[in-house]
């Protein structure tokens, strides 16, 4: 603040900031960013369309598209995917909304613990959760089914759960999709002013009636938005169905697209099969913005009075118990299963002094040759993508939030568009785009970098755009009046003010890259393997012990780097403030 005031003071060191002393690079930077974004998103999609619509000789054909409808082996997976995604959307909303309400609007004890556990399920890669649920709920070897039989004295092969079914897939998908709904709804409830609820209470409505008639309708846009996010996540997810659907002899659209890339590869059909996924995503996002208006969800109004907490009285403890019970499903049980698999010889054995072993730990750390290279690749990619992605999102968000250039709408569109491209589709597109000239990137880390950058950009962009909107332009105007160029204003004025938003965007991308599988599985080579792909490979040969060790290591590394980033970033923010 003080620096801005100093700059705003008339005549403050004008010579240093003379407009003519430096060329304003901002225009060039913005044009470069725009072109880069257009290529980043446009090129893979153009290749996808080309492959879907041409035959081997390059002539126009609709044969691939027609097969989507006529070929039962393509139509059936699409149907399964729609059933799964719809169910996941509904279940996630039904589970997350009440928990969000309890956490944001009641005096339930342990609210922070609940938030922390939900964050942990957000960081857990869904494919790791799926493998953990295999260990827990495979019909015969699953631990839960073991306990069930033992408890009731039942014979072998009687089981309570079968995870290799559509229901099982819906369940595991929901476990790792509901945090998205929770975050949106809890944020909306946090920001929602308490006036109307107060009015309702004053007029004599009982608390439950207020919650039902006032709070719920106010939170509804956020719930709907969350449902949509959960639906899209589930529709485009690759790892979980690949792990759970194939053993149950069925495909989803993502595993089908991937199988079309196996030998003998059929890129035309794979590209065509990607199109419904792409169109549906675009369509739903359009519907969402129509329904919720241009301002997006969760924005309800200024803060008038802080929300009132509902006193649950005796219901406090049952409410907490219910939350904990729900959180057992994505967090407590799966991590217990992974830990157990990591330290016992086979998962069928009970934990005892005889069965405890460091075999898997030793194997992964010292004998398994991909471990080091894959961790190295993963961390390099995650750090590079987070850094470049944050920088790019920052520039684009600045241009669009401040409406700097005439084409800012187009920039906004380009930075948001990748949200409509499922990872596996992008993987197919990038593979088609960068395996032939002029730029061959397949086989290098660059192609993975581009994939991750494209996938993670929209989230970072949205984060930073809202951060920009919270900073009034007058500070920048003051700097510009004092003669600072646009880039310098960005660096000296806005950057320090936006530090926490930038840090959040960086961590968000970083976590996203560490857990990404669907694009990587299309694009890796032996030299450019990442951990998620290594885990996926090990799962195909059933090495659960090694997977568990790698999965736990992946989480440890993720948390450690995020922690360091928070420390370093926080430190920078502190030192920047007094200056």
């Amino acid at each position: 603040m003080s620096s801005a005031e100093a700059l705003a003071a008339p005549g403050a060191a004008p010579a240093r900031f003379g407009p003519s002393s430096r060329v304003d690079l901002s225009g060039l930077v913005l044009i470069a960013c725009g072109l880069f974004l257009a290529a980043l998103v446009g090129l893979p999609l153009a290749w996808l369309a080309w492959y879907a619509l041409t035959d081997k000789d390059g002539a126009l054909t609709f044969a691939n598209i027609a097969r989507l409808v006529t070929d039962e082996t393509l139509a059936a997976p699409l149907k399964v995917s729609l059933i799964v995604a719809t169910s996941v959307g509904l279940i996630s909303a039904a589970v997350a909304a009440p928990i969000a309400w309890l956490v944001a609007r009641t005096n339930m004890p342990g609210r922070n613990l609940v938030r922390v556990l939900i964050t942990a399920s957000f960081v857990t890669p869904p494919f790791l959760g799926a493998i953990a649920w295999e260990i827990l709920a495979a019909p015969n070897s699953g631990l839960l089914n073991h306990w069930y039989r033992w408890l009731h004295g039942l014979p072998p092969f009687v089981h309570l759960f079968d995870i290799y079914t559509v229901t099982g897939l819906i369940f595991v998908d929901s476990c790792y999709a509901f945090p998205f709904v929770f975050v949106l709804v809890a944020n909306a409830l946090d920001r929602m002013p308490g006036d109307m609820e107060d009015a309702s209470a004053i007029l004599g409505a009982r608390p439950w009636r207020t919650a039902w008639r006032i709070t719920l309708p106010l939170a509804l846009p956020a719930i709907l938005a969350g449902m949509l996010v959960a639906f899209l996540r589930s529709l485009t997810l690759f790892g979980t169905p690949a792990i759970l659907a194939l053993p149950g002899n069925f495909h989803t659209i993502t595993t089908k697209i991937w199988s079309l890339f196996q030998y003998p590869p059929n890129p035309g059909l794979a590209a065509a099969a990607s199109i419904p996924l792409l169109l549906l995503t675009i369509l739903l996002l359009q519907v969402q913005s129509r329904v919720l208006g241009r301002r997006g969800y969760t924005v309800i109004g200024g803060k008038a009075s802080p929300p009132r907490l509902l006193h649950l009285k005796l219901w406090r403890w049952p409410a907490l118990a219910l939350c904990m019970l729900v959180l057992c499903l994505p967090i407590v049980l799966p991590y217990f299963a992974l830990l157990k698999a990591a330290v016992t010889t086979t998962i069928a054995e009970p934990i005892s002094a005889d069965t405890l072993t460091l075999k898997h730990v030793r194997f992964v750390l010292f004998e398994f040759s991909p471990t080091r290279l894959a961790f190295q690749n993963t961390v390099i990619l995650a750090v590079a993508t987070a850094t470049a992605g944050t920088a790019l999102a920052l520039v684009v968000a600045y241009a669009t939030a401040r409406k700097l250039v005439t084409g800012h709408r187009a920039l906004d569109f380009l930075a948001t568009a990748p949200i409509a491209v499922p990872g596996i589709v992008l993987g197919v597109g990038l593979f088609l785009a960068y395996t032939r000239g002029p730029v061959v990137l397949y086989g290098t880390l660059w192609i993975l970098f581009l994939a991750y950058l494209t996938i993670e950009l929209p989230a970072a962009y949205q984060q930073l755009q809202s951060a920009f909107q919270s900073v009034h332009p007058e500070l920048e105007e003051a700097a510009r009046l004092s003669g600072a160029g646009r880039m310098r204003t960005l660096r000296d004025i806005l950057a320090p003010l936006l530090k926490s938003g930038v840090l959040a965007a960086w961590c968000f991308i970083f976590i996203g890259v560490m857990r990404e599988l669907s694009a990587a599985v299309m694009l890796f080579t032996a030299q450019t393997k990442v951990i998620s792909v290594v885990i996926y490979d090990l799962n195909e040969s059933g090495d659960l012990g090694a997977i568990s060790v790698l999965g736990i290591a992946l989480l440890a590394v993720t948390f450690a780097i995020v922690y360091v980033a928070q420390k370093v970033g926080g430190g920078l923010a502190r030192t920047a403030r007094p200056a």
Partner: protein
Amino acid sequence: MKQFRTELRPALAGIIAIVALAVGVTPGSALPEASPVTPALVEAARKEGKVVFYTAVDVEVAEKVGAAFRAKYPGIEIQVERSGSERLFQRVTQEYGSSIHNVDVINTSDAAHYILWKRQGLLAPHVPEDVAKHFGDNADPDGLYATWRATLSPLAYNTKFIKPGEAPKSFADLLDPKWKGLMVKAHPGYSGTILTATAQISRELGWDYLRKLGQQRVMQVQSSTEPPKKLAVGERPIMADGNEYNLFTLKEAGNPVEIVYPAEGTPFIPSPSAVMAKAPNPNAARLLQSFLFSAEMQQLLVDAGGLRSLHPATKEPAGRKPLKEIKLMRDDPAAVVDKVEEIKANYAKAFGT
């Protein structure tokens, strides 16, 4: 004559090899001259400093092979890339399609791959001394590849759940409704072992058998190394296909698994290895290929890997049924090579994925 050499010879060689295998005769050594491991080769390999080995063998066995190579030739780093045979084949196709020449030595359990690669000129001739001496029947006559290891795809059951007398004894027995929902098998789209086995089973028993098996709600996993593991943890009590070597190692480690060699014959799966023509480390690649066929490595495959070796100097541990006492299905990669797509399509129809 030239036509004959380029087009028919691989097929003919395959047939000769199969006949030789079945009858057990050596058709004289038609192999090119052997290239021994000379100090010069070791030195050249050391200069390259690295070798990349793509293999479909079980990941723990693969890492043991890597460790043995490192111990024998310190200073040459070996990168072991394990994946399913069909996945490796796709990987090489994908990488070579983009002119990425990453792999030095390759091993898959689908012998048809080598016929295709040979046609495409992707393999380099290299005849290790042990191959020249002992693998005449099981090596490519042009010295491009040889059978590094072999295994079978038998049936098996978990003894905790099924008594020996009640276990299925043949493929036909698997169609009994009482086994519905109780079997596990691997996928020919991923595993070369299973593709080879599926080719042999469909030839001997017809697709009708596999279609009926598809109605038995069989649990479908990817790698042929996984059904034995699922069997051992009791996820399913019967294995409808999968490899023999993981069964050996699991059984010998005390897991309750028992092998059944089906009455109709057991699919025999040879698993060749070869040096790539565009190997980035050609000397280290030759050194590794020679090492792979040495008696010590072959014995390691048998002892630690549970694999079948075609090296006569290897000794089978007690308790494993000798190969010559087992009724085998004939392997015929030359007949499979152009039918891969058909096999996969038929399979997808029968099993749903």
